[in-house]
């Protein structure tokens, strides 16, 4: 017959036992005595003081299902580490199932870990350890002190007991070693959210929200970075395909080409009209190109594309200028001797072009003049929107990458390997080594 309760040798109060005979110590909550339950003598290991009694978020005696197996919360302790004179406290729960043995939960700032002792031995690597072909990065080494205990433990627990704890992470997993005396124990934790814990134990009260980013918290961008890049590249490739395909179906037909020479004369009207040319097919764009012999000069064109039948005119102006030279920095150039403009949505019909070149008369010698050629093409591919779309498609992966980087920075900020911002963190890890 296993005892379900024992009489506290300190105060005579009743101490409920949930761990059958598999635990090694039990706490009397009335007089805060820790009782050795491994022998019938029920020796008191320690009587401790508690400035305040912490209540476990999972009440002892609560049962919950973790990864398919039923466990009962039978023990609770708070532990703390000190970094730069600041104490950081977390909570640990001892879970028990008579057929499965012991399991543990830890909670810090609303972040939970489901912890099991491991059976093998991790192998040290340059930046951490490797276990069962998975590599874990060193995160933190610190001395943990037990500050408060409740319930039962499979070891002889003591308040004030210290252990050197080292954490290695490979989110969502964490390998931890605890060294007290000569004994090193290893355990593996897997990250859990408060919502998962509340669900597993059917808790009535909501658990506190997680604050900050925890050592082995899985990154919400873990796989999304790679896949967002894959998606963007795929969409851009598809877009390029559409672009190529659509240009194959565009006629890009040259409808007009004519060479001109321009000799500016003051007081004379320089405008002229071209011959009539047909624009066929559907309503679509017309591309006008001007190629000039300008050099260190500028020319301004007033254009009008005029429908010969309706008289409807599309007016637009273009400035063409090209300068080059050589200075102390070497050769330079500015502008271009040619210009291209797209006139969208021109209905089919018979058209002519009115051209009026303007110039600062002094800059162009009337003797030499300027040669230029006007070319009109109907139904040409318009690539700029494709370029913009491609750039827009790159925004999500770039953004996700940046957010992942920021998430990882926030994770490692809490480690012994935080960026140089706080030198003190580094000296802490040094002390512990």
């Amino acid at each position, binding site marked *: *017959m*296993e*005892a379900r309760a024992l009489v506290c040798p300190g105060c005579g109060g009743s101490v409920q036992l949930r761990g*059958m*005979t*598999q*635990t*090694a110590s039990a706490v009397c909550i009335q007089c805060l005595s820790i009782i050795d*339950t*491994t022998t*019938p003598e029920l020796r008191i290991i320690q009587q401790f003081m508690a400035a305040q009694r912490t209540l476990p978020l999972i009440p002892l005696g609560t049962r919950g299902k973790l990864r398919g197996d*039923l466990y009962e919360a039978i023990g609770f302790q708070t532990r703390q580490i000190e970094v730069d004179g600041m104490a950081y406290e977390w909570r640990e729960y001892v879970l*028990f*199932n*008579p*057929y*499965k*043995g*012991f399991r543990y939960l830890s909670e810090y700032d609303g972040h939970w870990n489901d912890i099991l*002792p*491991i*059976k*093998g*031995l*991790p*192998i040290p690597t340059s930046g951490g350890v490797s*276990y*069962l072909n998975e590599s874990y990065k060193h995160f933190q080494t610190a001395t943990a002190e037990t500050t408060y205990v409740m319930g039962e433990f*499979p*070891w*002889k627990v003591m308040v004030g007991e210290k252990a050197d704890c080292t954490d290695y992470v490979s989110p969502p997993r964490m390998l931890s070693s605890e060294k007290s005396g*000569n*004994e*090193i124990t290893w355990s593996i934790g897997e990250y859990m959210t408060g919502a998962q814990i509340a669900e597993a134990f059917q808790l009535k009260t909501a658990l506190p929200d997680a604050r900050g980013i925890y050592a082995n918290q899985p990154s919400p961008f873990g796989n999304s970075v790679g896949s967002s890049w894959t998606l963007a590249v795929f969409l851009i490739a598809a877009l390029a395909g559409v672009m190529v395909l659509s240009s194959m179906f565009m006629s890009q037909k040259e409808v007009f080409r004519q060479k001109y020479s321009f000799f500016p004369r003051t007081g004379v009207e320089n405008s002229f009209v071209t011959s009539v040319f047909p624009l066929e097919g559907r309503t679509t764009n017309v591309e006008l190109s001007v190629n000039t012999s300008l050099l260190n000069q500028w020319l301004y064109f007033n254009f009008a594309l005029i429908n010969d039948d309706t008289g409807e005119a599309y007016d637009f102006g273009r400035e063409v200028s090209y300068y080059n030279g050589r200075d102390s920095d070497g050769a330079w150039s500015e502008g271009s001797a040619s210009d291209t403009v797209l006139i969208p949505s021109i209905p089919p019909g018979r058209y002519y072009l009115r051209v009026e070149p303007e110039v600062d008369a002094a800059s162009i010698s009337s003797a030499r003049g300027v040669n230029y050629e006007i070319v009109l093409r109907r139904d040409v591919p318009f690539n700029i929107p494709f370029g913009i779309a491609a750039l827009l498609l790159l925004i999500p992966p770039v953004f996700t990458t940046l957010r992942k980087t920021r998430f990882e920075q926030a994770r490692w900020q809490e480690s012994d390997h935080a960026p140089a911002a706080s030198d003190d963190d580094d000296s802490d890890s040094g002390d512990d080594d």
Partner: protein
Amino acid sequence: MSRPAGNCPQCGARIEFQFSCAVQTVCEFCKSIIVRRDVDLALVGKVATLPPNSSPIQLRSEGIWNNKAFHVAGRIVYQYGLGGWNEWHLVFQDGKSGWLSDAQADFVLTFPLEPSEPLPQKDTLQTGNTFEWSSIRFHLTTLTKAHYVGVEGELPFEYWDKSEVLFADLRSADAHFATIDYSEEPPLLFLGESVTLDQLRMKNLRSFEGW
């Protein structure tokens, strides 16, 4: 198979060996330890009351490991720093013995292995020492001094009148387990691995109220 039988030299109760490999058993009525020598049953001692035990395993539990069925035939009970600890004697269908240790519901299944070289002397042992058996590299992780408490059921050797026993526990990177038992001279080596009761497909386990 004819089961060797006889009467308890102490109380006269019927003694029947269930397993032919067993050489020692405990009389269920008077808790006398009885060993089989040739055809005679000899009384060698008496088991004190065993401490309360919460192991889910019990005599006559059964299981299957590597497609071989086994029965739980007996156990040796030790006491160490963290409480009681059972070494359950398993008898497989091919007559071979295995050991299922249960310390705080942490289960390890091991089988005896004849080492090719002599095992280390107990006073040379230090945690961190490495050894290689069956092409597996083991690291010595724990040295445990345990007190022999008692026996129950059938065992493949005579085991009684012990006091303090030293065990060296070793682990490998890939979760293999080894233990050296210094209760005999020369010491005994056992090799195996951590297991769960589900992996052993156990039947006839003890039932716990509410579980």
